[in-house]
């Protein structure tokens, strides 16, 4: 291939448009806009809200959610969904509480590893058995929740030795909660690895068009299994964060985090159909969701409304971000 003398046709095509549309521009800033708008609204409702103390508390609350959402974002980017994250997180809190007396300081790493392994098994099941990720992780969700109940005798397990998780309760510079710093580091590390290696291309190609990715010879199956593994490991890390705050493990501790996590992903603007999005968006999404959660009582809405809000957010965010011209068939 050294003699490329190709005919250059005389007629040039009409110039193809390059830039993103207004809608695309807007959605790419959506999480940040939502965050600022929420902060403004809450400050307006309660001028005392914009204090360092309440912001620190909000940020600390958001950390486990952010980690959960970030991990699951990888699966969504690959075109799948991981519904098992919350149940796996609950199971991991039980495992942590049970293993802590024997493993001591190693427990954190072992629990994250075990959760990653469980995620990997789901990924392999999805890829090898060709089961839709929705079904695979729905089954996983049910199984993990039940296993957590069985091994914990359906009750919380108190943690006596608090040293193993003490580091997560510290504050960097006395202001920023360590758990949130860890969440940011996890998001940054995964994003950086994606950005600097061919992995980002692989993940996006898989999410946008799996058949095209496969026919281009990209390691589609490996990428998917890796995504489920990281999603599982993130559920494990989120579990450690929850334990550090509650001083116990419980089989239902994280069960109410599934909807907020999915809400965080879609509010961030990651396309539920795969390909488009990022982990940073989900981090911002997690902050938005958390602010809503702590903001409801401030504006005088009962917390019973929380679940209604999550349901509405998910539907509204997808309705806003979905490129309907591409989605001809809805299932």
């Amino acid at each position, binding site marked *: *291939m050294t003699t*490329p003398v*190709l005919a250059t046709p005389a007629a040039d095509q009409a*110039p193809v*448009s390059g830039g993103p549309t207004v809608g695309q521009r807007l959605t790419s800033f959506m999480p940040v806009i939502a965050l600022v708008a929420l902060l403004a609204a809450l400050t307006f409702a309660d001028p005392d809200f914009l204090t360092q103390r309440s912001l620190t508390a909000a940020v600390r609350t958001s950390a486990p959610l952010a980690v959960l959402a970030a991990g699951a974002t990888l699966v969504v980017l690959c075109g799948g969904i991981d519904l098992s994250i919350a149940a796996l997180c609950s199971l991991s809190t039980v495992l942590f509480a049970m293993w802590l007396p024997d493993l001591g300081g190693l427990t954190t790493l072992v629990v994250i590893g075990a959760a990653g392994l469980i995620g990997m098994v789901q990924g392999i099941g999805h890829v090898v058995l060709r089961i839709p990720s929705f079904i695979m992780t729905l089954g996983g969700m049910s199984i993990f929740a039940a296993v957590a109940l069985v091994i914990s005798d359906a009750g919380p397990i108190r943690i006596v030795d608090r040293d193993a998780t003490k580091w997560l309760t510290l504050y960097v510079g006395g202001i920023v909660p360590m758990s949130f710093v860890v969440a940011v580091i996890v998001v940054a590390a995964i994003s950086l690895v994606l950005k600097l*290696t061919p992995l980002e*291309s692989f993940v996006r*190609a898989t999410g946008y068009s799996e058949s095209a990715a496969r*026919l281009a010879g990209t390691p589609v199956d490996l990428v998917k299994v890796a995504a489920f593994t990281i999603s599982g490991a993130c559920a494990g890390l989120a579990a450690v964060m929850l334990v550090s705050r509650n001083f116990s493990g419980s089989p239902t501790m994280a069960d109410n985090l599934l909807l907020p996590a999915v809400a965080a992903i879609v509010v961030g603007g990651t396309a539920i159909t795969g390909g488009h999005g990022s982990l940073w968006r989900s981090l911002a999404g997690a902050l938005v969701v958390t602010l809503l959660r702590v903001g409801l009582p401030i504006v005088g809405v009962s917390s019973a409304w929380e679940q209604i809000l999550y349901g509405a957010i998910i539907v509204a965010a997808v309705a806003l971000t979905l490129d309907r011209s591409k989605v001809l068939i809805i299932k």
Partner: protein
Amino acid sequence: MTAQTQVNALEVNALEVRGLVKHYPGVKALDGVDLVVRQHEVLGLAGENGAGKSTLLKALVGLVRPDAGEIWVRGEKVRLRSVVEAADHGIGMVFQEQSLVPNLTAAENIVLGSEGPGVRRGIYRWDTMRKLAQAQLDKIGSHIDPLARTDTLTFAERQMVEIAKVLRIEERTSHPPVIILDEPTSVLESKEIETLFTQVRRLREFASVVFVSHRLDEVLDVCDRVSVLRGGQSVGEVPTAGAAPAELHRMMIGSTGSDDHYHGNLAERSDEPARPRLVVRGLSGATFRDVDLDVHAGEIVGIVGVHGSGREDVCRALFGAEPTLAGEVTLDGDKLDLSGTRAACAAGIGYVPAERKIEGMVGPMSVADNMTLTKQKSRCSGPLVVPQKQATLVDKWIERLSIRTPHRGTAIQRLSGGNQQKVVLARWLVAGDIRLLLLDHPTRGLDIGARSEVYSLMRELANSGVAAVLLADSLEEAIGMSDRIIVMSDGRATREVACPAGGKPTPLDLVKEMV
């Protein structure tokens, strides 16, 4: 029957388009198009990709709303806001991608959406429905069983069902309808095309037909007049009687070019090396059996066959994208692992899929990322991507293949079909380790200019020593491009026809072997 004999001062035009304009972001798809369809004529619509053909058609059936301009139906100005409104005015279209539901019978498909007396009190009246469908099929003289499940029919038969279905718009209007056929021949084999043409001529008796094709010979064969679009504008209308393909081609691209660019310009090559690069022995799969195939370095081997011959599956099997049951494949003497596409890529095999938009490219990703998707090492240093390395490499190939794109970072879906295909081809070339290219309809849906560029590139690659297997879009293309042609029929390789420069077989020679 020529166009002239039909023109009558008292007779109004079946359909008239005046100054139609449609903008898309950054593109003027239609820039003041005029079009006249007379009653009982077959009007050809010709134009390169991007000329505005599909936008115009969509405007005629209410799928696209024009920014300016008028549409007149039988002397009456109309606004078409949906397919239903278009049907009410007697305009119907047979789409390029078929729109039948595969697990319903032909009869159900024909009445689907306008069941009329076929449904009473919400319940299907099967007998009435079958009769309705039979009446539609009789109109076009088709012998398809209305109770056959659609997925058991061939592509050509399904097309007949579609025509029968679209003719139901006659019931909505008292006037002869206007039937639009969008690239109806693009996936038909030559024999089926003849049947279709007979059908089109029959339609003319009671309807007007707009026939869209990128094959000029077809347009000239079946149409009374041809209207040519270029760059969203009407550039002229000519009666087909006496028109030459070269003249039409000149109108389409705006300068003289040669339609049969790929014929005869084969470079002289030295004798073939003793051992073929690709050796396939006894390859069997779900749809093909005992296929033997040799391809030498620098050789283009065409595989021809009708639909159902299994040639597409053989091609995919060689790339590890289709399971095989038996057989051995060696590339330069090394046994090939056919278990997956990654092994094939690593061995230096490239595949250009027929479905470019779905399988060939990742639409929202950039030209650069699409080009380096497979050969990641070409843009990496160790495990890390080096943006500068990628930029240099991609820009080099954009220039070499004269890919027209605003920037290497532009999403590939914003390019025209020909430029997209060049990016897909470049994907296999960037690393310089390509040994065998499997080309599944590499010019499908491309305009003439883009086609000849792809032909030149294929020939150039072969001359540089790449072996290629070609599933061509037409027999003429297969004959023009190939050094040797394998005929496949019913899953078996039945004949081999030498196809050297200066000793090419005729399409008729091949058709005899195919059926």
